[in-house]
């Protein structure tokens, strides 16, 4: 159990306090970044860059969000840059071809029906209590890490960080139809990977 310092999350108008940044936020920001980019060294670098960038602009901090939220927003921006550079050049190869041809065997190309080995069967996760299962979580993480960089970026920005579709398309230079194709294929792929490894 984590015991939270109640002082951290309260909104007040106090100026930022960089002398406390590392002890207060470094582990949090590191965790945030490490989960999203799956590269611990890079995550560490991003935490450092976040603090240094925050120092440069700390005069602009207006206290309308918490210091933690503000630092997280700066980090988020850096993570999106990583996503963008990782997926640059991939857009064409991954989705620019006719979207109907690229489902890699999940569906029958003629009638759109599930192909046998990818057809969903009950996995015992349908009622959401799998959420508490550590092994399930580990498999999900492994499956996510196997996704192409661009798919992972789209999935995590949409489903984990609740970014708007417009923002994601803008940042990653995707057309709206490419976006939806990726959303669909990522989920079909993730689900199939879970089924293969969980039961």
């Amino acid at each position, binding site marked *: 159990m*984590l015991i939270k310092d109640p002082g951290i999350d309260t909104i007040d108008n106090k100026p930022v306090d960089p002398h406390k940044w*590392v*002890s207060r936020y470094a582990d949090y920001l590191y965790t945030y970044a490490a989960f999203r980019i799956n590269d611990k060294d890079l995550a560490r670098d991003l935490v450092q860059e976040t603090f240094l960038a925050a120092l440069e602009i700390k005069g602009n901090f207006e206290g309308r969000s918490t210091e933690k939220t503000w630092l997280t927003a700066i980090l988020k921006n850096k993570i999106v840059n990583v996503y963008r550079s990782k997926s640059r050049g991939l857009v064409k190869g991954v989705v620019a071809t006719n979207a109907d041809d690229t489902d890699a065997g999940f569906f029958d190309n003629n009638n759109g*029906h599930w192909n046998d080995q990818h057809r969903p069967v009950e996995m015992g*996760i349908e009622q959401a209590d799998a959420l508490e299962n550590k092994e399930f979580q580990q498999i999900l993480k492994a499956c996510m890490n196997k996704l192409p960089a661009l798919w992972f970026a789209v999935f995590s920005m949409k489903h984990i960080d609740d970014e708007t579709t417009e923002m994601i398309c803008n940042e990653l230079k995707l057309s709206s139809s490419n976006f939806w194709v990726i959303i669909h294929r990522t989920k079909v792929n993730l689900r199939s990977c879970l089924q293969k490894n969980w039961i």
Partner: protein
Amino acid sequence: MKELSEAELKKIAFNCKKATFLIEKQQIGKITLKEKMELKIHLAGCSICVTFMQQSAVINQAARKLFNPDSMELKLDEGFKAQLQKKINNQLAI
């Protein structure tokens, strides 16, 4: 609303690819009334896609939980942290 022709109905009833696409789109965006109806018809006759829909929602929740830094915090190396705070302090002193 225009009624669906028999050919259209057939296409929908058997097209799991289209149905799963609509399921994903509906979870985070809007689908049209016609699409809603198509999906309803498909799901009424396809328990496999109903299973997909349930599992898809669980995956979203599980991923969100997995990525919440408050639920499982990683620790940075203490030496790195000390160096980092020193760097910050140096910047502040300039």
